[in-house]
């Protein structure tokens, strides 16, 4: 845990500025990145939390302050408590009514989930003890996730929260799904252990009493070709309702996200040849599957790269888009009109001058192949999931050097590694508002043109608003020692700047156009 990005340590005062969509934290020494973060309801930011040591009580005990602010950084509540010096906050979420915080006690090896009601009072506390093996697994996965792309807490509107965390059961590497109720003290746990030796699970969503999960099962630790399933759990009990392979008699598909439209559950993703390896092989296109509460397919639609997307893009049957490369799908969003947008970023393998030179000199360390991250792309589908349009949004290419040996891996696998291990994509996040009439795709870029007024990093947004798409750019270079753009309420961003010399952390909210 101590390894995880010790950058800033929030200590004392958090005082709103004059126009208060800003914060200023004095006496900042260092801090764990996870100890200050956004509080989300789905993809919408509803506030922020700041967790810091406010006093030392004795050798083993600290006084902690958990400061909770609204979207505008105005303090709503300060929770002070004394606990062992080994406590930190890992995550938080909001379900429209209640808040949940996940506390981690490194020494005691425990997770504690605390829930707070709309009145600001603590409601229920749920605990999980972690084995040493689980700690090791978490250190390699969840704790090591400095970019915080991995989120373990998901809200269920007004009812509670789903937690998805890596877990160890005997020799199996698996995951643990918990439901924590906020209406009464109630919890259930589900841990998959049968049909494989290694399990990866993604929470897709909850609808009509069913918790939908995507599960990959590996027969062993060395298995590179997992089986994929959609798992349905009873929201009330956690009991398995169904576990169906993600394939029909023609294709195999890999679910990326789930949307609920008019009470119906739709799983969006990419599809592959029937015997393909969904981790390594190139997809054939996009799939849209409607499932009922028993996991049965009600309807399905497959859009192939060449036949369907080819009308709008110069693309091969394996999905190679001219001057763009392959598309890594970051997210799929359905808007109120029924249209679906697939948001992706291009990547392609190119020769690495550095890698070739290193190998020629016998130095090694760097692969002769590198990945070049290219442009952003939005593919639009209509409400019946037919391709309606596609547009590439140019940005600067971004080369990613690979460690020696990785150059032999397949493109899709390398793309996943870039997403989850190297954090190499420029895409930052997508935010959708509650009524799905607006979303913003945010990404970083840079301007290096000497003739331009500004040179340096930029934060960019492609925003959809009631059918119109606009683009915006915010310049982020400043006098600060370092800066970070954090999510803010829909259509806004929070820019955090750290001034090392002054030991000062400042933040201000900017609205995207």
């Amino acid at each position, binding site marked *: 845990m101590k390894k995880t990005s010790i950058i800033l340590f929030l200590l*004392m005062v958090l005082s709103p500025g004059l*126009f*208060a*969509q*800003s914060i200023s934290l004095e006496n900042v020494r260092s801090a764990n990145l996870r100890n200050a973060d956004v*509080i989300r*309801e789905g993809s919408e930011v*509803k*506030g922020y939390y700041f967790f810091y040591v*406010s*006093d*030392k*009580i*004795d050798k083993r005990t600290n*006084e902690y302050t958990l400061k*909770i602010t*609204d*979207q*505008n*950084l*105005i303090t*709503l*509540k*300060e929770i002070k408590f004394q606990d062992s010096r080994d406590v930190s906050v890992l995550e938080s979420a*909001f379900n*429209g*009514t209640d*808040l949940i915080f996940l506390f981690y006690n490194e020494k005691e090896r425990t997770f504690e989930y605390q829930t*707070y*009601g*709309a*009145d*600001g009072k603590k409601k229920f506390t749920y605990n999980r003890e972690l084995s040493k093996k689980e700690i090791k697994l978490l250190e390699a996965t969840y704790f090591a996730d400095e970019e915080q792309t991995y989120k373990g807490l998901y809200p269920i509107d007004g009812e509670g929260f789903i937690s998805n965390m890596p877990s160890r059961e005997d020799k199996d590497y698996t995951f643990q799904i918990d439901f924590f109720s906020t209406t009464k003290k109630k919890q259930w746990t589900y841990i998959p252990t049968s049909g494989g030796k290694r399990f990866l699970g993604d929470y897709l969503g909850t609808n009509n009493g069913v918790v939908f999960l995507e599960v990959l099962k590996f027969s062993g630790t060395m298995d590179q070709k997992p089986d994929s399933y959609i798992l349905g759990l009873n929201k009330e009990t956690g009991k398995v309702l169904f576990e169906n392979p993600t394939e029909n008699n023609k294709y195999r598909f890999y679910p990326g996200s789930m949307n609920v439209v008019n009470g119906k559950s739709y799983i969006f993703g990419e599809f592959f040849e029937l015997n393909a390896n969904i981790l390594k092989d190139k997809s054939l296109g996009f799939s849209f599957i409607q499932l009922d509460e028993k996991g049965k397919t009600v309807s399905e639609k497959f859009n192939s790269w060449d036949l369907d997307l080819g009308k709008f893009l110069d693309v091969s049957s394996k999905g190679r888009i001219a001057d763009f490369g392959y598309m890594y799908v970051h997210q799929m969003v359905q808007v109120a009109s029924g249209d679906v947008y697939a948001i992706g970023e291009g990547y392609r393998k190119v020769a690495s001058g550095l890698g070739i030179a290193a190998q020629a000199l016998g130095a090694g360390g760097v692969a002769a192949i590198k990945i070049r991250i290219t442009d952003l792309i939005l593919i639009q589908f209509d409400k019946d999931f037919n391709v309606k349009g596609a547009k590439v949004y140019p940005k600067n290419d971004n080369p990613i050097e690979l460690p020696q040996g990785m150059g032999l891996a397949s493109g899709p696998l390398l793309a996943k590694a870039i997403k989850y291990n190297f954090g190499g994509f420029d895409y930052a996040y997508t935010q959708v508002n*509650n*009524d799905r*009439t607006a979303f913003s795709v945010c990404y970083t870029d840079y301007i290096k043109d000497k003739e331009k007024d500004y040179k340096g990093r930029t934060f960019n947004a492609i925003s959809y*608003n009631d059918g*119109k798409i*606009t683009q915006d750019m*915010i310049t982020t270079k400043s006098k600060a020692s370092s800066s970070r753009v954090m999510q803010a*309420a829909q*259509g*806004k961003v929070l820019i955090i700047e750290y001034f090392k010399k002054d030991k000062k952390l400042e933040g*201000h*909210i*900017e*609205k995207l*156009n």
Partner: protein
Amino acid sequence: MIIRFFVLSIVLSIIVSATAQDATSYELLKDDSILKKQYFDISMKKKEQLLRSVGKEYAKDYKEIYELQFTEIGKLWSSSRPITSTTTNNYLQSIVKKIIDVNPELQGNDARIVFSRDWWPNAVSMGDGSIVINAGLVTGMDNEAEIVFVICHELAHYYLEHTQNSIRKVVTQQNSEEFKKEVKRLSKEQYRVNEQYNKLFNSISFDSRRHSRENEAEADRFAFHFLKNTGYSADAINTCLIKLDRIDDSLLTAPLYLERVFNFTSYPFNNKWVKEESSIFSGINKSESTLTKEEKDSLKTHPECSKRMEWLADSITKISGQGKNFLVDSVYFNSIRKDFALEIMEQCYRDENLSRNLYFAIEYLNRHPDNPVAVYNIGRALNDLYMLQRDHKMGYTIDPEKRTYSPEYNRLLKMLVKIRLSELGDLAYYFIRQYDPVMKGYPGYQDLLVTAIENRRNKE
């Protein structure tokens, strides 16, 4: 037919120009820069005198506090906040004269009293004789006598040297052996340091606020004494205190009717702009606080208005029914209350607080339909907000939503945050264009319209 049309067009042009004549510009009160400079110079001379008078003991602390105090005073006299226009200032000085002439203690007193354009209901004695009565307070009062009580209260603070006494007390306390010893001890402590620091500073803070409350009570007693001699009604003390007690609850609460003000045939109001969303701790009452009742009371600088009325009740009863509400000019008093609403609106714009500028302008427009100053202010604020948002700087000029603000003001803030750039451009354009018939002759109106058209064109 042609003749008929010709006649009709002449009639129409007469109507338009007649309406346009209504769009005469409200002349903002013209300040007397010489007077402001004079007041500034007096304050700076006082600063020099004070700095010279500081002895060797705690000289650094005194100098630091005086620097801070006079920086604020200097900022006041250098800003556009004081209202020093000849007529308004003469009116105020006539009221002040009524007080000074009948109170020998105050004669020879060099207090410089001004109205300010500040929107919040307050009055302040800055310690060097500069006394400011905010426009936001004047617009909430009903007669001269109520304003006279406020002036007497602030004059009493100056006469009783409350500011200087408080500075002396703070400096002495923070240089006491006991305090220094405690700070030194804490610097060596390892555990519960913040808790102990908080205790130490709270004790000083509570003590200084208690002292402040005592000063307020004393200023009230002297204010009664000063007012009693003037011929103004002492009953105004009660009515004034009742208003002060409620004034915070009535701030920014007037309904704005955004759906009506920003609804146009070609561009209807979009309810999405003000749609409520789920929020964290929505059930927490805005008045909820973690402080105990004793702590809350201790943190107040002023005693409760009910207590202040109670302390003065016997004295007021004795002369109740005597005296008048107006001794100088009731007509002018009512006219400045109206003028001050416009001055407040303009000052918010000068202070670059566009959300408040917009709030006061919309509120004024609702009370005075087609008022050109309000229309101009709204159009100008919308155009400015468009350009600021285009450059990602809107956040610096609007307040964020706060639970302590009234729902009406928060609704406006929500709209400003939610509205998209292109929508803001459209809104500004349709709003400004709607008032074309009324505003044609108004200075600056054409520029507003041109800017709105340009902004819309640029977004496309």
